[in-house]
């Protein structure tokens, strides 16, 4: 059975889960910039974990690796018009 959360009046939603806890084989690595792109906005900002559902431990690792990828120009610092 799927766990459901939320106020019945606002409707139910499926709880987001941390992608890295679900699959232990994904390593959070700055070299894998394609994967990191899922965790930044179109403007290049790091997405908060309330949006992505990442657990706090992996969010911390993610933030470090995104910043490394930025230094190596694999990800943008910012995207402006």
């Amino acid at each position, binding site marked *: 059975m799927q766990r459901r959360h939320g106020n019945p009046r606002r409707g139910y939603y499926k709880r987001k889960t941390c992608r890295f806890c679900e699959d232990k084989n994904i390593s959070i690595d700055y070299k894998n910039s394609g994967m990191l792109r899922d965790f930044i906005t179109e403007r290049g900002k790091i997405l908060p974990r309330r949006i992505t559902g990442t657990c706090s431990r992996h969010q911390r690792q993610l933030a470090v690796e995104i910043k*490394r990828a*930025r*230094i190596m*120009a694999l990800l943008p610092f*910012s995207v402006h018009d």
Partner: protein
Amino acid sequence: MDLYEIMFIQNPDLGEEDHEKLFTRFRNTVSKNRGEIINTQDQGIRSLAFKIQKRSRGRYFLVHLEGPGSMISELERLMRLDENIMRFVTIKLDSHVTREDLMPKAAPEAAPAVETEAAPEAAPAAEAQEAVETTEEQGGE
């Protein structure tokens, strides 16, 4: 002796000869400091997410090496002085990463997959890329 990973971006317009020269200097610095290069990977010319030194492309290299911390400061000095190195990052690898993980041609994805069949406890080794400590250069855009 610790294991390190260095990634650097080289000027893409650099000729093979100059590149060899640069690499020889790199290797000499490593051996002079009693270090050892385990693996080097040429990742080829890739486009950058933003311009560095007015260039929008760069040739990426990934080097795994073992050596004392003094070697790293020496290498970083060398890379900072070299005009053809546009950007670099040094990462001290986690203590549970072994030399064997970094050996050339041993596909890093293949090894943990075999381990998981034998013992599920071996899975955390897949996270081995995780690094503890870093020295990073040139934070700005």
